[in-house]
C-alpha cells in the first residue's frame, strides 16, 4: 500500500481533461467571481456594539477615567485590553485583537485644567467601515457632556458650547471608509469557499453516480492517489479565481494592496486545501451529486453569514461569533484584509493561520477515514 506517483499522475491528467471538457463547470469557475463582484460590490451596513477597545492611558487622572467609563457605558466600546505603549496598540490593531484603541496623552488633565483643550486619540480599524461608523459617531457625541459632572466649582467655566477636549479620530487602513476595500478582498475567500467545496464534492460523487467509481476501485489505484489526483487540478482553479479577484480589485475597485501579494498567494494555499478537504469529506457522505451540492450550500451559508463578510463580525452575538471562529473563511478574511489593507506580514497573520490548519487536519482525517476502497 505505498503511494505511487504514476498512478497519482494518471488521475491528475484525467481530471484535467475532464475539466476541460466540462464547459459548465468551467463557466462556473469564471462566472461566479464575476457575478459575485457585481452583487456584493455594495456596502452592507449594520450597527455593531460592544467592540473590543484597547486603552492606553498615559494620564491616569479622574478626568481620563471619567471619559473611559463614559465610553464603556455608551455600549459601543468594550474595554478589553490595556496597553502600555503606542507600539503595543499598533500591534493589537494590526492583529485585529481590538477594533479601537484610545490613547489618553500624558498631559491630558493638565491641559484640560488650563483650558487648552487636549487631544484624545481614537484609532479605529476601518478595514470594515460599517463596523466603526456608529461607534465613532457615538464617541463624538460624548465629548460634549462627558466631563460636565467633573467640571464643577471654578472649573465650571470649562463647560460650554464646545467640548473641553478634542477628539482626534484616525480611521486606520481605510481612511475614506470605502466599503469595497472591505468587500472585494473578502470576496476572494467567499468565492473560494463556494466553488472549491462544491467542485470537489461533485468530482467524487460524479464518479460514484456514473458508475466509474466501481471501475476505478477495481484497479490497483489507492485512495490517497485518487484524492490527491483530484485535488491538484482544483488548486489551480483556486489560483485562477484568486488572480481574477486581485486583478479586479486593483483595476476596477482600486483596492489598495499594502502588503505582500506573494505572501497572500502562499497563505491562500492552506485555505484552498481546507475547502477542498471539506468537499472531499462531503463527497464521501453524499450519495449523489444533488446531495453534494446541498451539503456544499449547508457549509457555504454559515460561512457567508457568520464569517464577518456579510455583517461585521463583532456585531454578531457571542454564539454566532463562536461558530464563526470555527469556520476557515472567518480566519482567511482576516488574513486577506490584513495583508492587503493593513500590510500585515507573516507574524500578524499567524493567529489566524493555525485555526485554518487545524480545520484542514480535522477535515482531511474525516475524509480519508470515510473514503472507502470498497463498495461496502
Amino acid at each position: 500500500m505505498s503511494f505511487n506517483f504514476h498512478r497519482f499522475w494518471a488521475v491528475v491528467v484525467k481530471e484535467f481533461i475532464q475539466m476541460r471538457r466540462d464547459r459548465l463547470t468551467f463557466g462556473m469557475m469564471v462566472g461566479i467571481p464575476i457575478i459575485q463582484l457585481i452583487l456584493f460590490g455594495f456596502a452592507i451596513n449594520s450597527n455593531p456594539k460592544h467592540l473590543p477597545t484597547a486603552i492606553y492611558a498615559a494620564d491616569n487622572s479622574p478626568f481620563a477615567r471619567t471619559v473611559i467609563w463614559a465610553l464603556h457605558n455608551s455600549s459601543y466600546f468594550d474595554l478589553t485590553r490595556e496597553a502600555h505603549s503606542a507600539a503595543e496598540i499598533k500591534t493589537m490593531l494590526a492583529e485585529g485583537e481590538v477594533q479601537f484603541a484610545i490613547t489618553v496623552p500624558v498631559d491630558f488633565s493638565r491641559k484640560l485644567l488650563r483650558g487648552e483643550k487636549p487631544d484624545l486619540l481614537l484609532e479605529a480599524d476601518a478595514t470594515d467601515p460599517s463596523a466603526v461608523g456608529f461607534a465613532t459617531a457615538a464617541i463624538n457625541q460624548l465629548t460634549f457632556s462627558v466631563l460636565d459632572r467633573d467640571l464643577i466649582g471654578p472649573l465650571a467655566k470649562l463647560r460650554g458650547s464646545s467640548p473641553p477636549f478634542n477628539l482626534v479620530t484616525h480611521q486606520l487602513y481605510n481612511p475614506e471608509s470605502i466599503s469595497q476595500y472591505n468587500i472585494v478582498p473578502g470576496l476572494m475567500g467567499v468565492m473560494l469557499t463556494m466553488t472549491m467545496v462544491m467542485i470537489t464534492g461533485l468530482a467524487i460523487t460524479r464518479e460514484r453516480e456514473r458508475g466509474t467509481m466501481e471501475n476505478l476501485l477495481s484497479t490497483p489505484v489507492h485512495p490517497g492517489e485518487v484524492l490527491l489526483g483530484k485535488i491538484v487540478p482544483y488548486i489551480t482553479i483556486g489560483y485562477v479565481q484568486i488572480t481574477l479577484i486581485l486583478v479586479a480589485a486593483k483595476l476596477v475597485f482600486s483596492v489598495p494592496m499594502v502588503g505582500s501579494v506573494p505572501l497572500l498567494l502562499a497563505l491562500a494555499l492552506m485555505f484552498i486545501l481546507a475547502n477542498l478537504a471539506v468537499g472531499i469529506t462531503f463527497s464521501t457522505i453524499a450519495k449523489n451529486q444533488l446531495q453534494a451540492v446541498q451539503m456544499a450550500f449547508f457549509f457555504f451559508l454559515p460561512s457567508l453569514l457568520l464569517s464577518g463578510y456579510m455583517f461585521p463580525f463583532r456585531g454578531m452575538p457571542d454564539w454566532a461569533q463562536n461558530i464563526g471562529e470555527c469556520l476557515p473563511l472567518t480566519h482567511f478574511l482576516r488574513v486577506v484584509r490584513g495583508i492587503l489593507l493593513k500590510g500585515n506580514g507573516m507574524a500578524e497573520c499567524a493567529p489566524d493561520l493555525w485555526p485554518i490548519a487545524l480545520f484542514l487536519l480535522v477535515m482531511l482525517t474525516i475524509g480519508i477515514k470515510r473514503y472507502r476502497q470498497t463498495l461496502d
Partner: protein
Amino acid sequence: MSASDFAIDVRGVTKKFGARTVVNDIAMQVRPGEIYGFLGPNGSGKTTFLRMLCGLLTPDGGSGQCLGLDFRRESNEIKKRVGYMTQRFSFYEDLSIEENLDFIARLYEVPQRKIAVQKSLERLGMVERRKQLAGTLSGGWKQRLALAACLIHEPQLLLLDEPTAGVDPKARRDFWEEIHKLAAAGLTFLITTHYMDEASRCHRLGYIAYGNLLAHGTVAEVVKAGGLTTWEVSGENLPALAEKLRGLPGVEQVVAFGTTLHVSGRDAEKLRANAAPLMTDGQHWTKIESGLEDVFISLMETAKDNFS
C-alpha cells in the same frame, strides 16, 4: 489437480447486507483457460460474488485463493492480475477512446504504455476513431472498448458482469468468438449472463439463486443434475391444453415454445400419471431431453420455495 492449479478456488464465500444474506456459502473452482458461466435470476448475488473476488466488497466469510493469492487478504495484488468489466459501462464518457485506454494503462503501470494503447486500438479497429468521446459510442462499441480496457494490463483472469446486455446478436457473436480465442491462449473467464445460448457456449456453468449455488458443472452435467423430465407437445389447441395442465400435481412447468409446448416435472412418474388423461389424439406427445432453460427455471422455482 492440486488446489493451486485452479485459477479460482474458493469455499464458504458469504456476504450479508444487514440481515439479508446475499451470497450464502458458495464454493467455486475454475480452471485456468476455462470459460465459466455464472447464471441466475436478477438479484441472486452474481454481481456481489464477482465484486468480492476482485476486492470491491469485503466478504463476511469464506476462504480460498484467486490466481494463487489469498482472496481475502491479498486483494491489492489480485487487482493487478484481474480485469473486471462492470455491468454498466463504467469508463469515462467525457474522455476519448484513447484517453480512456491511456488512463487505465497508467493506473496498472503498463510497461511501454503508448505501444500497449496503440496495439489495443488496432485490435479494436478504432485507430481512426481514437479521438472520439466514449460517450458517443454505440452499445456494441462501448462493450468492445470496455473489454479492450480490461485487457490492457494483460490480466490472467477476467470477470465479466453481463458483458453482452443490450448488445445486438452480431456483436454478441463476435464478442464470444473473441472470448474463446483469449481462453484458448490461457486466459480464464468468469462470465455472468442471462442468455441461454451464451450459457451453452461456456465450458462449465454455475447456477445461483437467492445467494445459493444450486447447480454446477458442464451443460450436460447441470441438465442431468436437474433431474427434469420434459415432454414436447405439438398439435391443436395448445393454449387450452396448457391451461388444463397448469396446476396438475407433478406438472411444474408448462412453457410455450413457438408451435410446441414444453411440459416438465421432476417426478417423471407423477407427471406421466397426471398428464395421461390429457394425452388425446389431437396432440402429439414426445419425451425430449430437458433444456438448460427448463432446468434453470425449475431450479429457481424450487429455490423460491426453499429460501424466500
